[in-house]
């Protein structure tokens, strides 16, 4: 996929020629991808295609061997650490739900709120009405209001998924990276999640990784299919899902 240089500056997220290998195994190969501001992009691709690794690169968890990763057209993400990247406004939901297990659901959200994250700020923090209202709202959205005082560790797998989405909402980043949000959800919940993401997309740029094609279809956005660490196909869901190669390596017959 060739990306025009002039667009590179206007893109929210711009990956070009990214390579990563682990002990000789090439997980990402010459990956190039552009995400426009306000866009929602669904990423699909076989297991092990490098989707999660790509998110790792964007969020600074993994450093690419080579290639460019630009955020907002100017910031080179490869030079920054996770905290800085999060501060820039990139939020992430992990494939395996990771929440703060020994804290309550409510505190998990409180921690995620994008207010002053400095040591001083948190030390002298006093709750504000606006904050608690935000938390209430998020709790409602993720339907965990009743569980607000439960320890996150005692939630079921799916509930943790929701909580993580909630944390992402509370964090309110410019760019959301959502890794398999509906894994382990019922069809109804899947639908709700799709609605939620569409709602979020009105004000945010979103990148979703998912294997649930119904869900991807429901999102109705541009789809990129990765394979062996590189872009295999890009386009509408119909275009991509009718691509022979995609069917062969991913969808199956």
């Amino acid at each position, binding site marked *: 996929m060739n990306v025009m240089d002039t667009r590179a500056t206007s893109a929210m997220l711009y990956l070009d020629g990214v390579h990563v290998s*682990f002990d000789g*195994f090439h997980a990402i190969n010459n990956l190039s991808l552009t995400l426009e501001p306000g866009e929602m992009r669904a990423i*699909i*691709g*076989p*297991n*092990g*295609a490098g989707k*999660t690794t790509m998110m790792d690169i964007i969020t600074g968890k993994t450093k690419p061997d080579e290639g460019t990763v630009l955020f907002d057209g100017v910031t080179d993400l490869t030079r920054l650490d996770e905290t800085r990247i999060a501060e820039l406004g990139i939020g992430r939901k992990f*494939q*395996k739900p990771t929440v703060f297990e020994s804290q309550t659901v409510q505190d998990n959200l409180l921690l995620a709120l994008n207010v002053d994250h400095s040591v001083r700020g948190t030390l002298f923090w006093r709750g504000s009405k606006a904050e608690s209202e935000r938390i209430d709202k998020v709790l409602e959205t993720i339907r965990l209001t009743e569980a607000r005082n439960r320890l996150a560790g*005692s*939630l*079921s*797998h*799916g*509930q943790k*998924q*929701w909580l993580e989405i909630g944390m992402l909402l509370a964090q309110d980043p410019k760019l959301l990276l959502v890794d*398999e949000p509906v*894994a*382990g*959800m*019922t*069809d*109804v*919940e899947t639908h709700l999640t799709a609605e939620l993401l569409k709602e979020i997309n009105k004000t945010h740029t979103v990148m979703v990784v998912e*294997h649930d*094609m119904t869900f991807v279809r429901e999102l109705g956005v541009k789809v990129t299919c990765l394979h062996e660490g590189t872009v295999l196909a890009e386009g509408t869901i119909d275009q991509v899902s009718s691509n022979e190669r995609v069917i062969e*390596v*991913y*969808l*199956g*017959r």
Partner: protein
Amino acid sequence: MLEVKDINLFYGAAQALRGVSISAEPGKVTCVLGRNGVGKTSLLRAMVGQYPISSGAIVFDGSDITGLKPYERARKGIGFVPQGREIFPLLTVEENLKTGFGPLKREDKHIPDDVFSLFPVLQSMLGRRGGDLSGGQQQQLAIGRALVMRPKLLLLDEPTEGIQPSIIKDIGRAISYLRNLGNIAIVLVEQYLDFACELGDSFAVMDRGAVKFTCDRSNLDASEISRQMAL
């Protein structure tokens, strides 16, 4: 083959299972369905003995296994594919598979060919550490690992979670292959209704720790199940 009778399970003060009964037959797939947090995983944990039940009985192969330790149950032939894969992260793929050798007789201590024909990706990754695999690859490994034990009862906890569509189909094929062998009883916990409906012989929908709806393949009504699940 397996008979779960009226079991209750508590996490501390919170009750996760309320009088659940369920059964599984060789050559049949029993599907357990339900929303998040209704107790599906808890039910499987009770069956494999990872968490003690407070009352009720679990009968397997004619004997009561309620009091047995998890490894004793496994040795009796209960294979388990847990939610979240629970791969041994630092063991290689091959070693992960070999952990299933424990209960086997000497002549059986090899990895059955089925495993590789069902999941060819494992063959190519034998030397890699389990923890390095991608989510979907780990899921395949987890199923493969359970098959190495030649189980009589296979418990699958949301095996399609995070799996690419073509492999979901493969897993579906694998499950029906196993079912068709006729000597393995399968309990499948799922939220992915289409998948469950395709494979299931009997269905149980759970809600708040209890089974609130059951049906058979014969009287299967997918929309009813879906309605039950959404409630």
